[in-house]
C-alpha cells in the first residue's frame, strides 16, 4: 500500500492500524505530501459541511411539515404499539424462516436435477430454475391470490406469500449450490469413485457436504432477499410488519414515523444478516457469490 512511498511523510493512522492485507481501494492513494494533505483537509471540511447541510435540510423538511410534532410520535411510547410491531415482526420472521428452509430444500432438489445425468430431468430442472429466477415473486403471489380461489382452492395468506418467496429463492439457491458443486475440485469425485462409490453416493457424501460449506455465506446473503420479500404480506394482508405498519398508520394517522421506524427495523435486520455473511465468509474463507 505505501511500500513504494518515497517521501517520509508519516503514515496515516488508518493505514498503520490496519492488519488485513491492503486492498486496491486503499492502494489508489499514496501517502500524501503536505499539499495533498491540505487539499484532503479542505475536502474533509467541505464534505462535513455538505453532510450537515443535508441533515439540516431533512430536519427542516420534517419540522416544517409538522412531522416531528408529538402527536405523530407519542404512540411509540405506548407498550401496545411495540407489541403490535413485534407481532408483525414475528410474522415476518416466521415467513422468512419457513421460506428460507423450503428454499434450501427445493433449491438442493433443483440443483441435483440440474446436474443429473438423466437429460429430461436436467431440462425440467433448468426450466424451473429459470422461471423461478426470471419472474417476479409478486406475479406468483398474485397468481395464488387471484387465481387459486377461482379454482376452489383456498390457502392461508401465510402460504400465499411463503410459497412464492421460497420458490424464487429456491431458483437462486439452486444456482448458488451448483456454483458450490463446481468449486469442489474434480479430484474429489475421482477419488470417491476410485474408492468404489457410485456417482450418486460420491455426490451425496463427498461433493455435496463440501459444496454446501462453500456456499454458506451466500445462503445467508440470500436470506436478506427473503426478508425483503416478506413485505409482500402487504399485498395479501398477511400480518407481517409492513402490513401491521399499514394498520398502525390508519389507527394513529401517523404515516411518516411508522414508515421510518419499520424501514429502520428492516434495514437493521438485513444489515446484521449481511454482516453475519461477511463474518462467516472471512472465518471460513468461502467467497460470497454475487447472483
Amino acid at each position, binding site marked *: *500500500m505505501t*511500500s*513504494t512511498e518515497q517521501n517520509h511523510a508519516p503514515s496515516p493512522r488508518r493505514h498503520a492500524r490496519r492488519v488485513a*492485507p*491492503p*486492498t*486496491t*481501494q486503499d*492502494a*489508489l*492513494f*499514496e501517502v*500524501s505530501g503536505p499539499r495533498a494533505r491540505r487539499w*484532503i483537509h479542505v*475536502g*474533509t471540511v467541505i*464534505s*462535513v459541511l*455538505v*453532510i450537515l447541510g443535508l441533515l439540516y435540510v431533512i430536519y427542516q*423538511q*420534517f419540522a416544517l*411539515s409538522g*412531522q416531528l410534532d408529538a402527536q405523530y410520535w407519542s404512540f411509540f411510547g405506548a407498550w401496545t404499539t411495540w407489541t403490535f410491531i413485534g407481532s408483525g415482526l414475528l410474522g415476518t420472521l416466521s415467513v422468512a424462516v419457513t421460506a428460507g428452509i423450503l428454499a434450501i430444500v427445493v433449491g438442493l432438489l433443483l440443483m441435483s436435477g440440474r446436474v443429473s445425468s438423466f437429460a429430461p430431468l436436467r431440462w425440467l430442472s433448468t426450466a424451473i430454475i*429459470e422461471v423461478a*429466477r*426470471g*419472474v*417476479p415473486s*409478486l*406475479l406468483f403471489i*398474485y*397468481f395464488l391470490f*387471484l*387465481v387459486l380461489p*377461482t379454482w376452489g382452492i383456498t390457502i392461508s395468506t401465510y402460504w400465499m406469500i411463503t410459497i412464492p418467496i421460497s420458490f424464487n429463492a429456491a431458483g437462486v439457491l439452486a444456482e448458488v449450490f451448483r456454483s458450490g458443486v463446481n468449486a469442489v475440485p474434480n479430484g474429489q469425485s475421482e477419488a470417491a469413485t476410485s474408492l468404489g462409490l457410485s456417482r450418486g453416493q460420491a455426490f451425496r457424501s463427498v461433493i455435496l457436504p463440501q459444496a454446501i460449506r462453500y456456499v454458506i455465506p451466500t445462503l445467508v446473503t440470500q436470506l*436478506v432477499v427473503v*426478508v*425483503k*420479500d*416478506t*413485505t*409482500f404480506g*402487504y*399485498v395479501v394482508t398477511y400480518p407481517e410488519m*409492513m402490513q401491521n405498519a399499514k394498520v398502525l398508520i390508519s389507527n394513529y394517522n401517523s*404515516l*411518516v414515523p411508522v*414508515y*421510518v421506524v*419499520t*424501514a429502520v427495523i*428492516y*434495514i437493521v*435486520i*438485513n*444489515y446484521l444478516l*449481511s454482516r453475519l455473511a461477511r463474518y462467516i465468509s472471512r472465518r471460513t474463507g468461502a467467497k460470497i457469490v*454475487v*447472483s
Partner: protein
Amino acid sequence: MSIGYLVSHYGTQFLSSLLTTWRLTAIGFVFGILLALLLTIVRVSPIKPARMAVEFYVQVFRNIPGLSLLIFIVYGLPALHILLDYEPSVITALIIICSAFGCENLMTGINTVGVGQVEAARSLGLGFTSIVTRIVIPQALRSVVQPMTSLLIAVMLSSSLASQIPVTNLDLTGLVAKINNAEAGGILTFALAAVLYLGTALIIASIGAAIDRKVRIAR
C-alpha cells in the same frame, strides 16, 4: 379465457405493459449505474466523512425492502411536502436501490484489480488520474459485467413493484392483477406475463454473458 380472446382483448395492453416494464427497468438501471459511478468515486476518495456518508447510503439502500422504499416515496414524502408523480416514484426507488447495489459491485470490481498493478503503475511514474482511468477502471469494469447483468435482471424484477401503486401506465404485473380483478383471466394471463418477464431476463442474461466472454480477463 382462451388465447384468442386474451390476444384480441388484451394484446395491445400486454404490449404496452411490456414496454412500461422495459422503460422502468432501463431508466432505473441507467441512472442507477451513473449514480453508482459517482458514489464509487466518492467511496474511494481520501475524504473520510464523504466516504462514510456513501458507505451509510449503500448499506441503507442495499438492505431496505424495495416495497418499503416505494411506499415511503409515494405516501410518506407527500407528508413531507415532496410530491412525486407515481411513475417517477417507482423510477426513483429503482434508481436508488440500483445505485446502492451497483456501487457495491463496482467496489468489488476495483478490489479485483491487484494492488501490484497500482504499485507497478506508480513506479512507472503514472499519476493518480492515469492510474485510475487507465489501469484500475478499465479492468474493474471488465470484471463486473456478470454482477451488473444480474443487477439489471433484479431491477426488472423490482419494476413489478409498480403494481403496488396506482400508476397510469401499468407494468406487466399490474396489468395481470387488473385483468384478474376485473374478470377471471385465469392462469393464461399469468403465463403470458411470466413468459414476457422470462424472455426479457434470458435476453439480458445472454447479452451479458456475450459481453462478459468478450471483455473478461482470464486470471
